């Protein structure tokens, strides 16, 4: 934490400002990983389409600022909406859109379990992927360039330094909220659904609606990460919806340790840092990361965070 607060100053001092940029990216992915862990780790809903919500958030940011720049309306019915460049408004819209899409897709996909759930979430994400490829107004396959970062009153988001702290703040708040969630009454119900859904039903829980609610909550987190990601790169493309990103998010969560918020954060950091370091040496960095992942899965069932936790416990 302290490292993250001080890092930009160090980077600035040694004139390595790309570090700020790449750490911002990692923090955004950490958020997406935490949101995925809420359903995969705590609720045993292995979604292979989580990137769809990251993509939706990103496109909300890009489309709304595209229209404000372009001067055209996003839609005219039932009321006229000209788009926006206000980050807070965009976050709210993104959360809203992700929640609706998650509710609609979740209503169907949560009727299934296990491998079927994986396939159906993947299918929905691919549908969105092709939908956005076909939207020529918004760049189609080429993606959409943002006119600049969305604005927040009183601070200059265009400055990478400031934007870094904004992302850090949002990540910290998000981790805090997620921890409240998993330790709440609702959180325990979701854990129960993961451990033994049949028993939960026989105890009197209508598990379907609890799982759907969790699914929607996770989607909104991913959408927030998407908005930040679009703002970071100032560019969006349909690749954000693709199963590659969904898969990467799953790898981060599994690497860090399923079912722990900090684990997801650690997983995102380790995965993306390794990617950066290894790709500096070889184009085929996946070749080296793969075995590492296999080792973690075989020898550390609870991921890197689980290993760290055991170390702390055995030191006591």
């Amino acid at each position, binding site marked *: 934490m302290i490292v993250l607060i001080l890092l930009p100053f160090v980077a600035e001092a040694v004139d390595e400002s790309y570090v700020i940029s790449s750490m911002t990216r990692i923090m955004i992915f950490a958020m997406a990983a935490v949101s995925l862990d809420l359903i995969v780790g705590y609720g045993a809903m292995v979604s292979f389409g989580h990137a769809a919500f990251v993509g939706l958030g990103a496109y909300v940011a890009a489309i709304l600022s595209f229209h404000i720049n372009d001067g055209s309306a996003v839609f005219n019915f039932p009321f006229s909406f000209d788009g926006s460049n206000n980050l807070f408004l965009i976050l709210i819209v993104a959360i809203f859109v992700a929640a609706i899409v998650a509710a609609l897709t979740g209503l169907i996909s949560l009727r299934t379990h296990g491998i079927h759930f994986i396939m159906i979430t993947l299918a929905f994400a691919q549908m969105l992927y092709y939908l956005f490829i076909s939207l020529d107004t918004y760049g189609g396959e080429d993606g959409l360039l943002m006119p600049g970062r969305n604005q927040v009153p009183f601070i200059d988001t265009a400055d990478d330094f400031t934007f870094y702290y904004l992302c850090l703040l949002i990540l910290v708040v998000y981790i805090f909220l997620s921890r409240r969630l998993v330790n709440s009454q609702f959180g325990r119900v979701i854990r129960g659904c993961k451990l033994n859904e049949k028993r939960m039903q*026989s105890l009197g829980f209508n598990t379907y609606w609890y799982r759907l609610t969790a699914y929607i909550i996770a989607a909104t987190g991913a959408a927030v990460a998407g908005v930040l990601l679009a703002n970071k790169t100032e560019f969006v493309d349909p690749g954000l919806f693709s199963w590659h990103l969904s898969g990467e998010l799953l790898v981060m969560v599994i690497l860090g340790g399923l079912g722990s918020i900090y684990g997801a954060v650690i997983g995102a950091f380790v995965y993306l840092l390794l990617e950066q370091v290894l790709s500096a040496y070889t184009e085929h960095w996946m070749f080296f990361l793969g075995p590492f992942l296999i080792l973690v899965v075989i020898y550390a069932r609870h991921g890197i965070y689980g290993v760290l936790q055991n170390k702390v416990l055995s030191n006591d």
Partner: protein
Amino acid sequence: MTEVVLHTENLCKNYAGLAANTNVNLQLIKGEIHALIGPNGAGKSTAIAQLSGELSPSSGSVYFNGAEVTDKPVFDRATMGISRSFQVTSVFDEMTVLENLALAVQAHQGHSYFFWAAINKNRKLNQQACELASQFGLEQHQKLLAGALAHGEKRQLEVAMTLAGNPQVLLLDEPMAGIGPGGSKELTQLLDGLRGRYSILLVEHDMDAVFALADRISVLVYGEIIATGTVDEIRNNEKVQQAYLGHSEN
């Protein structure tokens, strides 16, 4: 006048042409312990699953306090007051004993869409969970993960969870399964202590426990109830001796 809490009318369940239950008419009288016995594969678990709502019958109906509940899903019946335990222990291994019980209590206190307050500091929930734990002699294990309990203790937790929220009907599917003679005596005493407060349908293979506990017994053979009566009536019933008890004594 006896009051019937739960009853079925011509309950049938077929699995791809195989009849697991045929015209089962079962009456659970308020406050009684009613044992449902029968050889392996007689359809006892199928019957319980239809009473609890996990399986829907091929034909026939289930009534709870006179109202039809045939189409009610399992979680609705649970909150109405029909609670069940499982033959295969179904406790939450990765949660503590107290968390297991608190979760069972939570199910009966309205919805659980509370996202903010920490659950482990919920006094009301923890207190009720503690009471259940001490009722079943699990108070010294409260903080233990359920997965770390001995088999007999797990079975007790399994039954304890069904008592959360004061149900009217308990459907106990082989509560004594695999716990040995000592544990089974202990659990028999515990269940005896519940007599009168709940209406209990007990599926059990342990005949000592059945004869010690049951007010009435129904015998299920090949999916059909061939006799219902008091312990003595069932012991002296020729059909039952032939079909079931006779085999085990010879």
